C-alpha cells in the first residue's frame, strides 16, 4: 500500500516560471523551422531542364538536414495513420484479417529500394512542375520502410488486449471510439512506440538513398542531407562528407532527445502491469514539460473540445458490437473463399504471362542465380557478424554498468545511415584492390551488424544471474560454458536480431552491390546490382522481375529458415 502521494505530484506547484518560458520559446522555434523548411518544397522544378541542385557549402547543411528530418516526420505521421486504420480493421474484421495479415507479411519482405523507381515516376506525374512529386516519392520510400513493422505490432497488441478489460468496456457500454481511445490505443502504445522508434532509426538509410536517385536515365535530386552526400561523392569531396556525417550524428541525437525520449518517458504510464515497475525511463524535456504550467493550461482548455470530439466520434462509429461475431452463413463464406481463390489464380496467371512474354525463362534462371549469389553474401555476413559481435555483445551484457553505457551507443550506430560510410569503404576498396563482390558484404554489414550486437547484449542481460553463478559453481568454462549456458540463453534474442539483420542486408544489397566514387563505379554480380542497373536504365520488366525475385528470396528465407529457428527458440530456449 502506498498512501503517500508520488513525489512528482508535490513538485507541481508554484507559478509561471522558467520552464514555461522555455516551453514557449521551444514551440515558437519549432514552428519557425517547420514553416521555413516546408516552403522549400514549393520551388520550381521542370525536369529535365530545371532541377534543384545541391551546394557543397557546409553552411547549407543545417537547412538540408532539417528538410530530410521533416520528410522523416511526415513519413512517420503517415505510417502511424496507416497503422491505426489497417491494424484496427485487421483485428476487428475476421474476413479482412484473412487477407490483410498475409498481405502485410509479403509487403514486409518487398525490398523498399527496388520500389523507388516505380514510385518516383508515379509521384512526379502526380505533381507536375513542383518538387512535391519527388518529395512525395522520398517520403513514400521512408513510409514503406517504417510502416509494416508498426502495423504488425499494433495488430498484435489489439489481439492481445486482456480479455476482462475488453469485457469491462463492453459491459460499461463504451462506444467503439471510446474503446479505441481508452483501451486499445493505450494498451498498444508502448510496443508501437518502440517499433516506431526502431523503424524511424532505420528510416535514415532510406532518406539518404531516396533523395538522390537516378531513375529511367534521369538523375533526380531533392535537397537534403542524402543528396548532399551524393553530391559530395560525385565531387570526391571528403571534407564535405565529414561535415555531413557530423550533421547526421547531431540530428539523430537531437531527435532522440527532443522527440523519442520524452515520448518514451510519457508512455510509461501505459504499462499494462498494474503494479509499479522498477525504474521508469527518464527525459529532461519531459520533466520540463511536466513542471511547466502551459501544457496543463492547454490540456484544461481543450477538455471541452475533447469531450465534443468524443461525443461526435462515438456517434459516428457507433457502439461496440456484440462480443461474439455471429458466424457468417456457410454460403456467404464459400463465396468469399471462392473470390479469394479467383483473385490468387488471376495474379498467378498474370505473373506467368508476364514471365513468358516479357522476360523469358532464361532471364528468370539468370536472376535466380544472381539471387543465390546475394543470398550467399547475406548468409556469410550473418555468420561473420555473429562470430564477431556475439562474444562482444555477451561480454557487454554480462556487465550491467557497461551495458547501460554502451546500449545507447549501439542504438545510435544502428540508426546511423550506413550509406554515409559507403564512400569511405569504396575508397578503401579502390585503393587496396578488394573486389566489390567481397567488399559488398562489408557494406551490407555496416548497417546490419548492429542488430546482431544489440540483441546479443539484450539476450545476455536476460540470462538470470542465478544461472551464471551456477555455471561458475559447477565449473563450466570456455566452450562448454557457451554451449550449455550462453548460446541457449541468447538464442531467442539472436534469432530476433538475425531476422532484422537479414532483412536489412537484403535491402542494402541494392545500394551496396553497385557503388561509385567520383567517376569510378564498382559493380558486383548479384541480385541487388541487377535491380539497381535495371532501375537506372528504366527497364520495367527487369525491375519487376528483380524485385519479385528478391521478395521471393526474402519470404522463402524467412519461412524456411527464420520461422523454424523462431519456433525452436519459443519451444526450447524460452527463459
Amino acid at each position, binding site marked *: 500500500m502506498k498512501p503517500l502521494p508520488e513525489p512528482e505530484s508535490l513538485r507541481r506547484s508554484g507559478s509561471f516560471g522558467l520552464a514555461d518560458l522555455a516551453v514557449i520559446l521551444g514551440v515558437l522555434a519549432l514552428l519557425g523551422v517547420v514553416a521555413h523548411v516546408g516552403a522549400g518544397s514549393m520551388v520550381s522544378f521542370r525536369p529535365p531542364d530545371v532541377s534543384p541542385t545541391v551546394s557543397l557549402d557546409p553552411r547549407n547543411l543545417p537547412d538540408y538536414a532539417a528538410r530530410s528530418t521533416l520528410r522523416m516526420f511526415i513519413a512517420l505521421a503517415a505510417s502511424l495513420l496507416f497503422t491505426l486504420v489497417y491494424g484496427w480493421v485487421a483485428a476487428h474484421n475476421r474476413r479482412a484479417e484473412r487477407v490483410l495479415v498475409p498481405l502485410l507479411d509479403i509487403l514486409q519482405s518487398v525490398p523498399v529500394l527496388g520500389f523507388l523507381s516505380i514510385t518516383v515516376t508515379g509521384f512526379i506525374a502526380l505533381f507536375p512542375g513542383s518538387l512535391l512529386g519527388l518529395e512525395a516519392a522520398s517520403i513514400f520510400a521512408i513510409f514503406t520502410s517504417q510502416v509494416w513493422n508498426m502495423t504488425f505490432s499494433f495488430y498484435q497488441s489489439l489481439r492481445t488486449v486482456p480479455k*476482462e478489460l475488453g469485457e469491462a468496456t463492453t459491459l*460499461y457500454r463504451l*462506444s467503439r471510439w471510446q474503446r479505441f481511445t481508452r483501451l486499445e490505443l493505450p494498451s498498444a502504445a508502448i510496443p508501437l512506440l518502440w517499433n516506431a522508434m526502431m523503424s524511424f532509426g532505420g528510416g535514415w538509410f532510406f532518406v539518404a538513398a531516396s533523395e538522390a536517385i537516378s531513375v529511367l536515365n534521369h538523375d533526380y535530386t531533392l535537397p537534403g542531407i542524402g543528396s548532399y552526400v551524393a553530391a559530395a561523392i560525385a565531387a570526391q569531396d571528403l571534407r564535405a562528407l565529414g561535415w555531413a556525417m557530423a550533421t547526421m550524428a547531431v540530428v539523430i541525437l537531437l531527435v532522440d532527445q527532443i522527440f523519442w525520449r520524452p515520448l518514451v518517458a510519457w508512455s510509461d504510464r501505459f504499462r499494462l502491469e498494474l503494479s509499479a515497475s522498477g525504474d521508469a525511463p527518464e527525459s529532461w524535456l519531459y520533466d520540463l514539460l511536466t513542471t511547466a504550467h502551459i501544457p496543463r493550461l492547454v490540456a484544461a482548455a481543450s477538455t471541452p473540445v475533447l469531450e465534443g470530439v468524443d461525443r461526435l466520434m462515438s456517434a459516428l462509429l457507433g457502439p461496440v458490437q456484440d462480443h461474439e461475431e455471429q458466424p457468417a452463413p456457410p454460403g456467404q463464406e464459400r463465396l468469399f473463399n471462392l473470390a479469394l481463390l479467383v483473385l490468387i489464380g488471376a495474379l498467378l496467371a498474370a505473373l506467368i504471362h508476364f514471365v513468358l512474354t516479357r522476360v523469358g525463362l532464361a532471364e528468370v534462371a539468370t536472376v535466380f542465380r544472381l539471387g543465390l549469389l546475394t543470398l550467399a553474401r547475406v548468409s556469410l555476413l550473418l555468420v561473420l557478424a555473429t562470430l564477431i559481435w556475439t562474444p562482444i555483445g555477451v561480454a557487454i551484457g554480462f556487465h550491467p554498468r557497461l551495458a547501460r553505457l554502451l546500449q545507447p551507443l549501439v542504438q545510435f550506430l544502428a540508426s546511423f545511415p550506413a550509406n554515409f560510410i559507403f564512400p569511405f569503404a569504396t575508397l578503401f576498396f579502390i585503393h587496396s584492390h578488394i573486389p566489390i563482390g567481397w567488399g559488398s558484404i562489408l557494406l551490407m554489414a555496416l548497417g546490419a551488424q548492429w542488430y546482431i550486437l544489440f540483441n546479443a547484449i539484450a539476450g545476455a542481460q536476460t540470462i538470470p544471474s542465478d544461472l551464471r553463478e551456477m555455471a561458475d559453481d559447477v565449473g563450466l568454462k570456455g566452450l562448454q560454458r557457451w554451449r550449455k549456458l550462453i548460446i541457449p540463453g541468447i538464442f531467442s534474442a539472436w534469432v530476433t536480431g538475425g531476422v532484422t539483420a537479414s532483412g536489412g542486408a537484403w535491402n542494402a544489397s541494392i545500394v551496396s552491390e553497385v557503388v561509385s566514387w567520383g567517376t569510378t563505379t564498382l559493380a558486383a554480380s548479384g541480385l541487388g546490382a541487377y535491380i539497381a542497373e535495371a532501375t537506372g536504365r528504366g527497364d520495367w520488366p527487369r525491375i519487376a522481375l528483380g524485385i519479385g525475385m528478391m521478395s521471393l528470396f526474402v519470404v522463402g528465407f524467412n519461412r524456411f529458415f527464420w520461422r523454424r529457428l523462431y519456433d525452436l527458440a519459443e519451444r526450447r530456449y524460452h527463459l
Partner: protein
Amino acid sequence: MDLITVDHVSKRFPLPDGKGEFTVLGDVTLSVHRGEVLALLGRSGSGKSTLLRIMSGLIRPSQGEVRSNGIPMRGANPNLAMVFQSFALLPWLTVQENVELGLAARHVPLAERQERALKAIDIVGLDGFENAYPKELSGGMKQRVGFARAFVLNPEVLFMDEPFSALDVLTAENLRGEIDDLWNAGTFPSKSILIVTHNIEEAVYLADRVVILGSKPGRIRGELQVNLPRPHDRNHPRFKALVDYIYSVMTNPDIAVTGEVEGPESGAGPEPSPQRNSGSPFSRPLPHVRVGGISGLLELVAEKRDADGSIPQLAQRLQLEVDDLLPLLDAAVLLGFAEVADGDVRLTAIGRDFASTTILRSKDLFRQQALGRVPVLSSIVHTLQEKENRAMRSDFFLGIWDDYFPLQEAERQLATAVDWGRYAELFEFDAIEGRLYLPS
C-alpha cells in the same frame, strides 16, 4: 417481476475442424429476484463464468433466452454492472477516471460525472485516492475501485465474478465484510446482487440463496435457501450445516441437491459414485492434478488419525479453495486411494500404503492403480505396444481427446496423462519431438 430471467439457456462451442460441438451449459433456467443476494456456486468446468457472461449479455446463448425485466436482451445489459476477478482497471486512468468510465460512455456531463464518481469513491472508502493510478494501489484498494466503478451507475443488479479470489485471505475477508455491511444497511447502490464463486463459505456468508452448478455439461443441480438473519453468523449451527452439506454435495456429483438441510447427517445416504463406463476411455476427463499433489494430500489425511476426515476441515487446514482441493480428491478416488462419502474422506488400504511407503514402492502402487482404474492410460500403453517402434506422436492422442473436448482442454488432458504416465513409468514423453514412447 424478476430482474433477470434465464429461460432454458444452453451454450455450445464448436469443436475445431467441425468435429461437432462441446456443451458448456445445458438447459439452465434461473431468475434473479428483486432484493436478493444470489450466489452461483460451482467447480471449475461448471460453466459458472459462461453463465454469468450470458446473463450479462457479453455472450449470446446457443439456445433459450435471457430477459431483463421481462424484455428479451440483445447485447450487453445496460441495467447491470460487473465487478471482475482481475479488477479490469485501465492502468493509464486515475481512480476517478476509471470510476467515471461508465458515465463517460453514457455521455453524462462532466460536472455531474465528477460529482457522482466522488460519491462512489467515498462509499468504498477511497477518498484521497481520486488522482492515484491503479499501480499505486494494493490489491484490495484496486478492487474497491472496481466496486466504485460499478456503484456509480446505480445498476439494478450488481454482478460479481469471483470478486475476492485474487486477494489475499485477510484483505478478502475485510472487503467481503464491508460489502456485506453495505448491503445490510439498506443503502446498497443496486437492488440485487449476483455473485459467482467457488468458495463455499463465501457463498453462504453473502447470499440469501445459493444455486449449485454441476459439471460436464454445466447445469443447475439445485438450490438452497440460507434462511439466516443477516449478517450471517459463521458460528450459527445452520451456517455450519449448510457449509458441510454443500461440501458433501460438491464432492459427490451424483447425489441430488434437495436443499433440505438440518445437520451434517441430513444428506440422503449418497451411494458411491458409479463409474460410468460408456464410450471411449478418452471421453472421461482426468482431474488436472499432479501426482505429487495427490500423495501430499493423502499423507496429510493419513497423519490426521483422530479426525473424521471432514472435507471442510481439511480445506480449512490446508488453506485450499474448493477448486484446488476437489480435483485432488477426485483423482484420489479415481485411483482407488480414497473414498468420499457424506463430506468425509477416508483412505483405502492401498491409499494408506501409498501415502506412507518409499518412493519406489509408491510408484509401483501408482502404476498398478493407474493401469487398473484409469482406462485412458492403459489405452495409451496398448496403442504404443502395438506399434513396431513402440512410439507414437502425441498429436495422435491429442486428436482423440480433441473429439470430446475443446482444444485447450484436450491439451490439458494430454499434459495430465503424460504427468501420470511418466510418474508411473508407463511411458515416456519427448517434448521436443512431441512423441510418446514405451520405456526400453
